[in-house]
C-alpha cells in the first residue's frame, strides 16, 4: 500500500512522522499549488468548499506519483468536512481513479471499524507500537506549532527582512527527506535554534492581530495567500489559537478519552453564540472576544466561500466589533480569489490599524503632558 493524505498547512509533518514510525509507505503530495486547485475545481461540485477542491488536487497529484490509498479523518457533522471522505470516494471513482479511501473516524461506538482501518494501514495491530507512534505524533505536532508560533513572534521584529521566512521555508521542504519522529523532532529543534539566532528589535511593540476562522484556510498558507507571513513582514505580530496540534489533541485524542480541553473561548462566545454549531464557529466568536479583551489591535477572520458555520460567525462578528471597538476583517476565499483585490483589502486593513495606533499614541501623550 502506498498511502497519501491531503495537505493542510503543516499537518503533513506530524502525519508523516506517525506513518514513518508505523513503517507505512507514504507519498506526500506536492505542496498545495495552482495545478492542484485547478484539478480539484474541475472535479468537485462548483459550490463545494475550497478545501475539498484542493484535497482532490492533492490526491490526483499523489496518484500520479504512485499513491494507491488515501488516509482521511472523518467526523459526524454538521460541518461538511465530515462527509468529505464520501465525496472523495464518489468523485474519484467516477473519474476512474482507482484509489482506496480509508477514513479514520472518531468512533461513536463502533471501535471495530476504526481498529480494522488501523490494521489495514499498519498491516497488523501492535497496540504498543501504535500507542507509541500516537504519543510521538502528538509531540511532533506540538513542536511544529511552537515553531510556527515562534515565527509569528520573530517575523515582525526581525532586523533583516525576510530572514524568518527563509529559514522557515527551507525547514518545511527539508522535512520531506527526514524519516521518523525522532529525527523530525531533532530537525524541528535545529530550525528553532536557527530562528532564535535571528537579530531582532527587542524594543519593538508590534501591532497585534488575531487570526480566527475555519481551520483549513487559516492554517494553510497557500489557501490564505500567506497572510501570516505578509502581516509579519509588515511588522505585525499574529496569533492563531486554532492549530493543527490543538485539533489533533482536542478533537481526536481528548474526545476519545472524554477529557476537556482549554474552553475559555466557549465562555467568551456565550453572549454572542449560544452553542456549538459545528466547524470552529464557536472558537471564532470566543477567540475574537478574548482578543478584544486582551487589547489586540484587530482580528482577521478567514474562511472558504460557502462555509456554513463561518457564515454564522461572519454575521455575528460585527456585534463584537461594535461592542469592543475592535476592527474585524473577513476574508473569504475561493478558487477565484485574485491576489490583487485580496492584497488591497489586507493593506487597507493594515493601514487602518496603523492609523489607530498613531491616534492612540498621540492621545496617550496628551494625557501624559497633563500630569
Amino acid at each position, binding site marked *: 500500500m502506498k498511502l497519501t493524505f491531503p495537505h493542510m498547512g503543516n499537518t503533513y509533518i506530524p502525519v508523516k512522522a506517525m506513518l514513518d514510525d508505523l513503517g507505512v509507505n507514504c507519498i506526500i503530495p506536492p505542496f498545495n499549488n495552482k495545478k492542484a486547485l485547478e484539478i480539484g475545481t474541475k472535479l468537485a461540485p462548483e459550490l463545494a*468548499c475550497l478545501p475539498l477542491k484542493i484535497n482532490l488536487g492533492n490526491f490526483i497529484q499523489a496518484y500520479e506519483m504512485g499513491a494507491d490509498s488515501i488516509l482521511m479523518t472523518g467526523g459526524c457533522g454538521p460541518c461538511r468536512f465530515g*462527509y468529505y471522505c464520501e465525496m472523495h470516494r464518489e468523485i474519484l471513482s467516477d473519474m476512474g481513479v482507482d484509489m482506496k479511501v480509508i477514513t479514520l473516524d472518531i468512533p461513536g461506538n463502533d471501535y471495530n471499524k476504526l481498529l480494522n482501518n488501523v490494521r489495514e494501514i499498519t498491516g497488523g495491530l501492535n497496540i504498543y507500537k501504535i500507542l507509541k507512534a500516537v504519543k510521538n505524533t502528538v509531540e511532533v505536532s506540538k513542536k511544529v506549532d511552537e515553531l510556527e508560533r515562534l515565527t509569528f513572534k520573530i517575523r515582525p521584529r526581525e532586523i533583516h527582512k525576510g530572514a524568518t521566512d527563509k529559514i522557515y521555508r527551507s525547514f518545511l521542504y527539508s522535512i520531506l527527506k527526514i524519516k521518523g519522529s525522532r529525527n523530525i523532532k531533532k530537525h524541528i529543534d535545529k530550525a528553532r535554534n536557527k530562528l532564535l539566532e535571528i537579530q531582532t528589535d527587542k524594543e519593538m511593540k508590534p501591532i497585534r492581530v488575531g487570526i480566527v476562522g475555519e481551520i483549513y484556510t487559516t492554517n494553510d498558507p497557500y489557501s490564505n495567500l500567506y497572510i501570516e507571513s505578509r502581516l509579519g513582514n509588515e511588522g505585525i505580530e499574529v496569533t492563531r489559537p486554532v492549530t493543527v496540534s490543538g485539533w489533533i489533541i482536542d478533537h481526536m485524542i481528548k474526545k476519545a478519552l472524554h477529557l476537556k480541553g482549554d474552553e475559555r473561548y466557549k465562555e467568551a462566545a456565550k453572549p454572542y453564540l449560544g452553542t456549538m454549531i459545528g466547524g470552529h464557529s464557536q472558537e471564532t466568536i470566543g477567540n475574537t472576544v478574548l482578543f478584544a479583551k486582551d487589547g489586540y489591535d484587530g482580528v482577521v477572520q478567514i474562511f472558504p466561500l460557502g462555509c456554513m458555520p463561518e457564515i454564522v460567525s461572519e454575521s455575528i462578528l460585527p456585534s463584537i466589533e461594535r461592542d469592543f471597538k475592535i476592527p474585524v476583517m473577513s476574508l473569504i476565499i475561493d478558487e477565484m480569489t485574485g491576489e490583487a483585490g485580496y492584497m488591497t483589502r489586507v493593506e487597507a486593513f493594515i493601514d487602518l490599524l496603523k492609523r489607530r495606533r498613531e491616534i492612540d499614541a498621540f492621545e496617550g501623550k496628551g494625557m501624559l503632558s497633563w500630569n
Partner: protein
Amino acid sequence: MSIKVGIPKSLFYYQMYPLWNTFFEELGAEVITSPNTTKKILDEGVRVCVDEACVPVKLFHGHVLSIKDKVDILFIPRLTSISKGEYVCPKFGGLPDMVKSTVKGLPEIIDVEINWRKADSNDIESIITIGSFIVKDEKAIKNAYKKAVDKFNDYNEDIKKGFMPEDDKNRKSNLFVVKDSGIINIAVIGHPYNLYDSYINMNLFKKLRANGVNIITQEMIGEDVINLHARKLNKRVFWNFGRKALGSVMHMIEGSDIKGMIFLMSFGCGIDSFIGDLAERMIRRHTDIPFIYVTIDEHSGQAGLDTRLEAFIDMIRWRDKNEVDISAYG
C-alpha cells in the same frame, strides 16, 4: 389580551408549523405569521444579511423584519437537531444569534435550543422551556404539546399523500391521480422551505402541475423506506435533509415510475452542494432518468426557468412515447 407570538414564514416554518402553531395556540397565545414571501421581504432580507449566506437564510431575515414590530415575542428556536444522530444545518443552529446580531429593535426572542440528536424520544425539557415563555403551568404545556404533536402527525400524513402545505385551502382539487393518462411523475428534491414557498421557487410547483406533472417529494416517502436505502450508503449522512434526500433518490432508482428528477437547490447552500452532487451521480450511474438542477437565488428570473422546464418536460414526454417503440434487444 393574549400574547402575540410571531413566527417567520420561512425555514423551519414549512416543516413544522402545525406543531408550533397548535402548541402556542393551545397555550392561549395568538400566533402571528409573517405574510407569504414577496419581493420586498426578500429584498429587505438580502439588504441586512451577510452576502455569503444562502437565500433561505437571507429570506428568513426579511420575514423577521416584516413581523418584528407586530408581535410581543418572536419564536426563533435554535434548531440544532430534529432527529437522532443528525443535524439540521449549522445555520439553523446559529439562526437566533445571526438575527440578533443583524436586526435592530427586536422584541423578546424565544431562542431555546432544540436538540434531539441524542434523545430517543422527544426531549420534553426544551418544550417546557419554550412553553414557559407563555404560561407557567408545566402540565398545560405538556398537554398543549401532545395536541400539537397529533396535529403535526396528521399534517405529515397529508404530505405523504401528496398534499402541499399551500393546498391547505383547497385540498382535494389539487390532488392528482398517479399514473393517470398524460400525467407524469417527476421527483423534486429540495428543502421544504424552498419546495413550499412559491415565490422563492418561482412557482415551480404550479408550473409543473399545470403541465400535468405529478410531483413526488421526499416528504411523501415513508421514513422506513428512506432509512432502508440510506443505510446502504457507505457512511451515514449526518444531515436530516441529506439522509432523506439520498434515501429517497435511491428508492426512486430502484423501483418507481419517476420520469425525471429536479434538484431544487439554494445557491450558497453547503448541504445542497454535496447532496445534489451525490444524487446526480447516483441517478446517472444507475439510470437514464433525466436530471436537472434548478438553482434558487435572489436574482433568479422566471423566464429562464420557464424555458428550461418546458424543454425538460417535453423531452420526458417524448421519451415516454417513443420508448415503447424501441426494442430492448436492439
